């Protein structure tokens, strides 16, 4: 070990300074023991960056270990920059989802944009060409100007970055709920494609190999952003604004092309994105994965600002940078490839045999840690988990006792109200700002259930979707966790795709609170059960804790990103009715369940009751029924039944594609024994609305999978409108009326509020 001295001007290591760096006294002792001395300021910075929640997963690792990660299709499970699954023909899909919640709460446009940039890098560092982006967003009610500002800024940030890179944004979900006031969730998912032999890992190898810093220059951007992401949001965050980084999608596009060329060139052995905690975490993690030593000279890192200290260079979160381990002697070849793309590449260190993580400033050693202990010795915490009293209370409320409003005497009123609720209404206002057709692979884009992308040169396609209902998770985390996986699988299966694997983004509150940790462990348990039952292993993900505003924690929101494969382009199925005269069939069964429904939230303003049961055998049966009928060619359309229940699912199937609307006549009287509102708006799981010209075959296939199925009606022409016989009444709504409610709800809110127009404008002019 070499002697490490404080640099002139380093602040003294006081308990306050340690606290500011987010380290507990125990953690500080742990570092001192590891070093056999007190850390220097630079070392303190390194540790605080690596041991904060965002990088270390210290509160989540033990729980995440319980998730199923094995599967026939899995090529690369959790632990790398992205998961990788095989879809056959020697082609693999790399995918990963990540949160950028806190930066987006402070600066929505740049926060969301840099979130997209980060997840793109995670995928192309695996050697995969990004082919699609998704995003899963949560905001408080659009009644508040602040929330409209966040919504507009985030959507524009996502669009501007992805559009500029030329990767289509094809799917996602947006939910509005007061629970997210002051703490929006911004999760971005990237899907990439590679040949199985093109896979490359972020594992430093080969003693003497040079470590090269590639891409943008390093500035003082986002220093300690990683620890930022691990704190509750408070007024104080306002003061942290300067930490937010500015994205440069143009440089990212060059970096994307250069990196793929570099990887294919065979001149490098490993490549890793410099994401949270920048150079520190990327170098330390690469070394740990390869179980080798590394030495980095910060004075060689290309900087954008003068007078940057090693501390700043190590912790900077300047975007659009990569760390590469090249083959010794191939430095020039690497430089040439980057030069072709107008990018720089500087050798800043090398892989060494000596088991240390060493940082120098010129020849002065400024930080040194034994072996990979920085990563391996990171503390792990098991918090005692105990369900919160509120959850128990809310769940025990008998929601069937909630009296109907007098308007509800006409279910048409309720149906229109639900279709116009921003969570259910068309998100076209948002996804119309995303280029969803570039690269000409998008067979089914935003607007239906999952998106479908063809795989050029094969007869295959993949389907992708994100889903999560945080309300269910808040009321019963285990059931909510199961449903998140089941709904994503159902959405993917509706397009004809076999669900293959998932990535997940676990957005929760402060894990040191027992009731939050309970939500976390239970939700993860539920996700695990569903993944085993549906044979969709977890290939990676991301945990975002401390999603709390002054008013408390957000709904626990474990977002599931699902990838499925369609073996023949013939089988691609859409969610809207196609042929007048087709039979409308409901796969699955109606129940009296209303708990946690959008109906209760929108019409009665309550989030209460038991969420719907989730029978995983049933879910598997429904998925198999879908796939078998689609392969048999007996299904014309399939739309999953989720938020808003059966009435909403049927209405969406009629008019969510404005260019091809139909009518529908539906008879739900067979469920007359159940309350009408439960039949129409209840969110019983395991249900799909399909249209078919060969009912008998569909019912037969359903029976063979022991899935209840029943013909509930007929697709009629547009002028027929929606006609529902339920209980003792008949509901009539014109197709145009339905479309008007569904398609204009969000534009009316967003386009008529100048406030948003402008703030959006300010964002607009920024780029």
């Amino acid at each position, binding site marked *: 070990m070499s002697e490490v001295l404080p640099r002139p001007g380093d602040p003294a290591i006081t308990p306050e300074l340690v606290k500011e760096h987010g380290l507990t006294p125990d953690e500080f002792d742990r570092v001192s023991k590891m070093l056999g001395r007190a850390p220097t300021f630079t070392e303190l910075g390194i540790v605080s960056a690596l041991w904060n929640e965002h990088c270390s997963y210290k509160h989540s690792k033990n729980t995440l270990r319980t998730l199923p990660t094995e599967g026939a299709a899995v090529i690369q499970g959790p632990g790398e920059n992205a998961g990788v699954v095989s879809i056959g023909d020697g082609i693999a899909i790399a995918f990963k989802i990540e949160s950028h919640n806190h930066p987006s709460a402070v600066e929505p446009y*740049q926060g969301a944009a840099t979130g997209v940039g980060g997840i793109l890098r995670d995928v192309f560092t695996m050697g995969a060409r990004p082919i699609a982006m998704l995003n899963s967003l949560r905001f408080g009610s659009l009644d508040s100007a602040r929330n409209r500002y966040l919504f507009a800024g985030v959507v524009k940030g996502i669009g501007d970055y992805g559009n500029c890179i030329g990767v289509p944004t094809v799917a996602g979900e947006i939910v509005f709920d007061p629970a997210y006031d002051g703490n929006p969730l911004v999760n971005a998912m990237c899907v990439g494609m590679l040949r199985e032999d093109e896979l490359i890992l972020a594992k430093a190898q080969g003693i003497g190999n040079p470590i090269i810093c590639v891409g943008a220059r390093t*500035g003082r951007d986002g220093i300690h952003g990683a620890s930022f992401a691990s704190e509750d949001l408070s007024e104080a965050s306002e003061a942290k604004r300067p930490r*937010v980084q500015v994205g440069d999608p143009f440089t990212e596009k060059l970096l994307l092309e250069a990196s793929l060329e570099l990887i294919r060139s065979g001149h490098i052995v490993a490549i890793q994105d410099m994401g949270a905690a920048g150079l520190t975490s990327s170098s330390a993690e690469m070394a740990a994965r390869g179980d080798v030593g590394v030495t980095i000279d910060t004075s060689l890192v290309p900087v954008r600002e003068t007078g940057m200290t090693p501390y700043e260079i190590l912790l900077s979160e300047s975007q659009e940078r990569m760390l590469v381990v090249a083959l010794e002697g191939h430095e020039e070849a690497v430089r040439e490839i980057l030069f072709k793309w107008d990018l720089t590449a500087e050798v800043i260190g090398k892989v060494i045999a000596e088991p240390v993580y060493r940082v120098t400033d010129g020849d002065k050693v400024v930080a040194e840690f034994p072996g990979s202990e920085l990563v391996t010795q990171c503390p792990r915490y098991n918090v005692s988990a105990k369900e919160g009293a509120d959850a128990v209370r809310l769940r025990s409320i008998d929601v069937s006792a909630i009296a109907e409003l007098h308007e509800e005497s006409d279910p048409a009123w309720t149906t229109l109200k639900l279709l116009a609720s921003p969570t259910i209404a068309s998100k076209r206002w948002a996804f119309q700002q995303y280029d969803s057709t570039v690269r000409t692979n998008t067979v089914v884009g935003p607007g239906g259930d999952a998106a479908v992308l063809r795989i050029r040169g094969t007869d295959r396609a993949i389907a992708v979707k994100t889903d999560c209902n945080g309300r269910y998770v808040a009321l019963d985390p285990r059931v909510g966790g199961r449903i998140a996986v089941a709904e994503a699988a159902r959405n993917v299966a509706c397009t004809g795709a076999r669900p293959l694997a998932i990535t997940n983004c676990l957005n929760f509150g402060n894990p040191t609170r027992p009731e939050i940790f309970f939500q976390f462990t239970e939700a993860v348990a539920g996700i695990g059960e569903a993944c085993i039952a549906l044979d969709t292993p977890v290939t990676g993900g991301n945990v975002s804790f401390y999603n709390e505003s002054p008013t408390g924690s957000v709904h626990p929101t474990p977002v599931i990103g699902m990838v499925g494969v369609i073996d023949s382009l013939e089988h691609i199925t859409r969610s809207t009715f196609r042929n007048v005269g087709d039979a409308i069939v409901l796969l699955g069964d109606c129940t009296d369940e209303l708990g946690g429904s959008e109906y209760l939230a929108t019409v009665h303003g309550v989030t209460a009751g038991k969420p719907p049961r989730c029978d995983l055998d049933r879910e598997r049966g429904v998925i198999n029924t879908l796939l078998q009928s689609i392969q048999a060619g007996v299904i014309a359309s399939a739309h999953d039944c989720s938020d808003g229940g059966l009435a909403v699912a049927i209405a969406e199937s009629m008019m969510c594609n404005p260019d091809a609307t139909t009518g529908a006549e539906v008879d739900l009287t067979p469920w007359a024994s159940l309350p009408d509102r439960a039949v129409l708006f209840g969110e019983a799981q395991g249900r799909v609305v399909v249209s078919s010209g060969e009912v008998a075959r569909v019912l037969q296939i359903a029976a063979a999978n022991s899935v209840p199925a029943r013909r509930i009606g007929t697709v009629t022409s547009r002028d027929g409108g929606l006609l529902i016989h339920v209980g003792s009444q008949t509901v009539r709504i014109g197709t145009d009326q339905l479309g008007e409610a569904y398609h204009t709800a969000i534009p009316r809110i967003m386009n008529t509020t100048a406030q948003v127009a402008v703030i959006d404008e*300010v964002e607009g002019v*920024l780029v």
Partner: protein
Amino acid sequence: MAAMITNHLHQKIEAQVALYRVPVQIVPRPGILDPQGAAVVGALKTLGFEAVADVRIGRFLTVDVEADSAEAATLSVQRMCEKLLANPVIEDFALEAPTVQPGGRS
């Protein structure tokens, strides 16, 4: 329109409401990455402007506002910038001297 206001000597004087144009410069804060500026520097150099050392790109606004005086005009535009026109996260702004525009009511 004419309004009666009092000056610092507490004399009643008549203030003319006029239309003032207040130019506003909005620039990226020092240290904040300016990708546009960087790209333009590159382009200028390839165009042979070797001597260019740096370019920062922001926004230039002209705000026309009715006010009793240049001071009042400046003050209100100042508030507009703080409230809306500039993004304090990444931008600084500066106001130039107002000029009276023809066509303001009086």
